[in-house]
């Protein structure tokens, strides 16, 4: 009797242990192990440490592009998202046109398009206006003298990323605004607030709290997509890797290092987003 009980107990602690093992985040442990091996390489292997220091030269650009483009994307997305819920047909249609075009184009194509079509077109128009205004502004007005070359490829790349992600964030903001019950707008309006006041003080504060986790995930996606700017020759970490590879043909070492750098950043960020989500979950107000 007692023996069977103790066996039962032992098997149950065993199965508990197995369960505990199976619940461990093995994927994370695997990644950490791979990271440690790579770290060891960086410290001991001369080639790896050379590559690391080369790629690190692009890290500021990668982070800069991501931060600036994402900030602009949030602003664009908020404006376009408000347009998507507007009852003004003109505003609604303009916002929808923007969102649909963005969603229908590969990001790589958007980058080429902004860099080599929209930017020159913008200056063609600007120059034409400058030409027309010569009688008013004189021969050397900035609209006439400025040209496409004034906008660096870095800037064009950031504009392209901001436009692309602005289209995604527009839908994120729209969904957030629409998730707030109709009663909130009605209560605000019944107190005499205008539509704009109700949006600003009642709807948006609630909607923005709800979209923070998806925005966090989009920030991570933006960090990854910032690698696309390398096609314009902008020297982010991807471009540094490509330059190094083309001279050295050290493919595995270079791209191992590149992948390591992206993964380190994205995993830390996604753990941060998850932590934030949990905190939000505990307190619906997120404060």
């Amino acid at each position, binding site marked *: 009797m007692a023996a069977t009980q103790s066996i039962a107990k032992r098997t149950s602690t065993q199965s508990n242990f197995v369960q505990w093992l199976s619940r461990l985040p093995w994927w994370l442990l695997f990644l950490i192990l791979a990271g440690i091996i790579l770290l060891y390489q960086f410290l001991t292997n001369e080639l790896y440490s050379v590559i690391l220091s080369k790629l690190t030269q692009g890290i500021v650009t990668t982070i800069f592009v991501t931060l600036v483009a994402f900030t602009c994307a949030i602003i664009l997305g908020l404006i376009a998202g408000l347009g998507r819920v507007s009852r003004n047909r003109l505003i609604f249609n303009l916002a929808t046109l923007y969102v649909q075009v963005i969603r229908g184009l590969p990001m790589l194509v958007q980058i080429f398009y902004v860099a080599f079509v929209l930017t020159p077109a913008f200056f063609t128009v600007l120059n034409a206006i400058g030409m027309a205004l010569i009688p008013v502004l004189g021969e050397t007005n900035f609209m006439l003298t400025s040209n496409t070359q004034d906008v660096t490829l870095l800037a064009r790349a950031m504009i392209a990323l901001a436009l692309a992600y602005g289209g995604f964030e527009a839908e994120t903001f729209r969904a957030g605004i629409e998730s707030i*019950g109709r*009663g*909130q707008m*009605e*209560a*605000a*309006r*019944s*107190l*005499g*607030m*205008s539509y704009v*006041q109700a949006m600003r*003080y*009642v709807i948006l*504060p*609630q909607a923005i*709290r709800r979209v923070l986790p998806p925005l966090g995930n989009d920030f991570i996606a933006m960090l990854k997509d910032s690698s696309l700017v390398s096609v314009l020759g902008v020297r982010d970490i991807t471009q540094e890797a490509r330059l190094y590879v083309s001279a050295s043909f050290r493919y595995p070492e270079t791209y191992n290092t590149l992948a390591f750098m992206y993964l380190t950043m994205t995993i830390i960020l996604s753990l941060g987003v998850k932590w934030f989500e949990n905190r939000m979950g505990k307190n*619906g*107000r997120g404060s």
Partner: protein
Amino acid sequence: MGAVPSAKQPMIVIKNLVKQFGRIDAVNGVSLRVEQGKVLVIIGPSGSGKSTVLRCINHLEVPTSGEIWVDGIRLTHNHKDINAIRAEVGMVFQQFNLFPHLTALENIMLAQKVVRKRNRDESERVARRQLERVGIPEKADNYPDQLSGGQQQRVAIARALAMNPKVMLFDEPTSALDPEMIKEVLDVMQELAKEGMTMVVVTHEMGFARNAADEIIFMDKGLIVEQNSPQEFFSDPREERTRAFLNQILR
């Protein structure tokens, strides 16, 4: 004393209000007037158009046709007018609709600041006074999800009152409440009525209708079936349909 009663203009006048939602006729030609300081109770079966009438009064629904005057001002599509009228017309909803990201106090202060342009101190003073009035001054710093339904509804009433409205509209203010909380809200409303607030109340609370109403309207299928004093309405209704409805709910 010397005031001539007939010179008092009615607070709300509705003439021939029609409201259609697509092919649904929600309101089919309703006319009514509410004198200043009076309490009008609207009752009727579900879907009879009670909420729609109420919501047309502050233009939350745009009437299909008909005319509405509030305190002598004709409601048109002019946004400025509408916002101005809404600030004078307090509305209390079945689902409270408190702003969940703001504390009780902030809920009451917000519209005072942005619509009435009162400064922080003044709006806070008014907010605290209104919370006192509805009996929960100690809940000032609680968020809506930390309050019971009855408390939330009282904050919602305080929020509307803080704008110094000339009229208060109530759309089934106790229907979402647990039975034990209904009284605390009705008491506040009764008090308001006693203080002379002009009120239009959609409710199924017949006790409140009997005690507080100056007049009762019974609606069915988008029309006013009967308009009567509370005494006659409950003891000797004129219409057969009213009688049937009362039998059904007073059983």
